[in-house]
């Protein structure tokens, strides 16, 4: 580790009153702040040094909860639209919405997010118009929003390739002297991919402000985590790269906000990259095309339904007297608006222009593409005539 790197980590950690040693190692147990019944945890063996997180401010909790209510509705609406045949496919993050909205909530406007196919709720929560986010699943183009405008990469399908894009985006920002933080998302199964390793190592060696946020939803399609790794936890993978790691209950929005909010500040302050593992569960099948009963028991799903992030946050906020019925109704109303926007947008018949097929392959179509586009145009004219 270079002197600069060490100093960066030390200074940043000290500014939070923690030692670099405590900062670098993941907590022995998951960071959990609210239990599944919605009660704030205080008792127990006590927090470990360096992993003692304050409860976020009330207004941050309410804002995140608002996003959570909307996020759940987005998942449910999209799954319904798939069943009705309005979309080809939707990989739902039902059960993982706390992770999705916490990520979006902790970023500033100039920061970047590099999501996967599963992270539509995070993408919309970050500010991408819902219908634009769904274009890819509706099937009229491979991407529907402008990455530069929202500072959100196109939802990536080739596993963990986007983590390296996050590294590059962070490096570009650094070269221009901008204090951008970049969050890259991936799943538990994806941590076995080569690009996961390359991205974490690059980020650590270049000491870049990147947070790698892994949603460990226990499965990669049908394959359970035990078949991916025998590491003590996914967060512990950080140790080998000389990077800080943390593990958090991914169904506990309070804990997620606390961990990510501190993480963003540390990373922005020069502490280098951070790996966060959130333990959660994919309540639905991998996608609508998958049959989860072939590889997991319903009892397991029921167990996780009892830890539902939305219910948990609602009882916590209600218990603290922060969530009046009227406010809950307002959030639900907003969620209905977004659902209506999705229904209206996706029920519209869109006929993509076939000539667009040739328009964006290169800055200017090559002579060969011009020929092929003319051929298609002719075919279409003949088709119309007959």
């Amino acid at each position, binding site marked *: 580790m270079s002197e600069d790197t060490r100093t960066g980590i030390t200074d940043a950690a000290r500014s939070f009153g923690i030692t670099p040693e405590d900062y670098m190692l993941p907590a022995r147990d998951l960071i959990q702040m609210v239990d599944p019944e919605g009660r704030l945890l205080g008792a127990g063996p006590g927090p470990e040094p360096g992993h003692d997180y304050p409860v976020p401010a009330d207004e941050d909790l309410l804002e995140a909860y608002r996003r959570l209510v909307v996020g759940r509705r987005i998942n449910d609406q999209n799954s319904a639209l798939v069943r009705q045949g309005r979309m080809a496919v939707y990989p739902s993050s039902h059960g993982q919405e706390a992770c999705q909205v916490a990520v979006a909530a902790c970023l500033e406007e100039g920061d970047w997010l590099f999501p996967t196919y599963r992270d539509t709720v995070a993408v919309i929560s970050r500010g991408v118009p819902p219908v634009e986010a769904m274009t890819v699943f509706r099937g009229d183009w491979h991407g529907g929003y402008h*990455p530069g405008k929202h500072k959100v990469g196109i939802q990536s399908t080739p596993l963990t390739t986007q983590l390296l894009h996050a590294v590059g985006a962070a*490096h570009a920002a650094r070269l221009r002297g901008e204090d951008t933080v970049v969050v890259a998302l991936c799943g538990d199964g994806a941590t076995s991919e080569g690009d996961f390793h390359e991205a974490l190592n690059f980020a650590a060696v270049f000491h870049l402000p990147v947070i790698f946020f892994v949603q460990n939803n226990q499965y990669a399609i049908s394959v359970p985590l035990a078949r991916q790794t025998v590491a003590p936890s996914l967060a512990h993978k950080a140790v080998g790269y000389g990077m800080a790691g943390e593990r958090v209950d991914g169904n506990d929005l309070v804990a997620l906000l606390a961990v990510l909010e501190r993480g963003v500040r540390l990373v922005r302050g020069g502490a280098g990259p951070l790996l966060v593992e959130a333990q959660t569960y994919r309540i639905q099948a991998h996608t609508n095309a998958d049959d989860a009963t072939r590889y997991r028991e319903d009892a397991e799903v029921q167990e996780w339904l009892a830890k539902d992030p939305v219910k948990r946050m609602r009882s916590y906020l209600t218990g603290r007297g922060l969530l009046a019925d009227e406010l809950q109704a307002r959030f639900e109303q907003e969620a209905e608006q977004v659902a209506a926007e999705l229904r209206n947008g996706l029920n519209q018949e869109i006929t993509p222009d076939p000539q667009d097929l040739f328009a*964006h392959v290169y800055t200017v179509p090559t002579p060969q593409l011009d020929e092929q586009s003319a051929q298609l145009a002719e075919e279409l004219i003949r088709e119309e005539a007959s």
Partner: protein
Amino acid sequence: MSTRQTTSPDAGSVDAVETAVDAARESTTRAGGAGIPGPRPESPVAPVPPGPVTMAKALNAALADALAADAGVVVFGEDVGTLGGVFRITDGLAARFGTERCFDTPLAESGIAGMSVGMAINGMRPVIEMQFDAFAYPAFEQIASHVAKMRNRTRGAVAMPIVIRIPYAGGIGGVEHHCDSSEAYYAHTPGLKVVTPATVTDAYLLLRAAIDSDDPVIFMEPKKLYFAKDRVDLDALKEQYESGDGPRAALESGGAAVARTGTDATLIAYGPSLPTAMAAAAAAQEEGRSLEVVDVRTIVPFDDATVAASVAKTSRAVVITEETGFASVAAEITARVQQRCFHSLAAPVLRVTGFDIPYPAPKLEHHFLPSVDRILDAVDDLQWED
């Protein structure tokens, strides 16, 4: 099979290659394919004739001039910093432009390519080096899935102004993994441009144009020509590049060049095979046959017009490449010429390529490489009735 035994430049040392290139240069009149002028006519007032410059030096100068011209250009890869690259193509760049603009990465080719994607998304123009042809394969997923497709995926919202420099092909007595002609993999991937220079002048001009291109360019450098020399004035080339747009146009719509004019048959070659083709044309001249040589230069976009015009004129063609022949660039060129020039052809278009075997060990490579004899044998087979 003829018993012809001329000396093949490919079978010999780098010296032999240099001699062939020098010879090629001297006997060449370049008729502009896509507006890249040939060597400037000797100025009557020029007091000092320009000294000999290697292709390596011209590439180095192109990188330096591009770094100086645009603050967004960054150069990175393995050993490109302090060492200046294993072939010294990036020699002195880190010292001159600083380690932020020219730097070494950890050893991870997917990492290098993926990072370049993220940097391009965030506004930079990365120029990355793959150390050898076969060591670019780990980067293939990033290249095929993102570098090539990001513009199309985002309907032009995100450009990929990335140059991937790959030293390629054999003839240097290299061991396995150091001599692959991998151009077909890239040429088969829509969204990529594939460019390969064969002369010192083109090395400079095409690399500058590649760096300025908003499309990703796979820049294939024939490593056996790195130390081939030519008398060029690099300052004049810089001036020529910056005041015209010939090379940029070549990358937009294809830029083949007639490297030697002739009347009886056309040899179509590029990169490492061009000097061999030129030597074959020189040898044929002695036998009383006038061969035209076309240097493809831009494999993608392919310059159908220049190639077809030459073959329509001569009525005969041989395509010469170093790659294995099956499903190759040579196969594509042959098909295109056959289709476009069918009625002017006096004989089927023939191919001289490598065999369909893994690249051989050093002591056997001369059996694999297209040689002057093999080319002349192919020319003999072009159904001459007289």
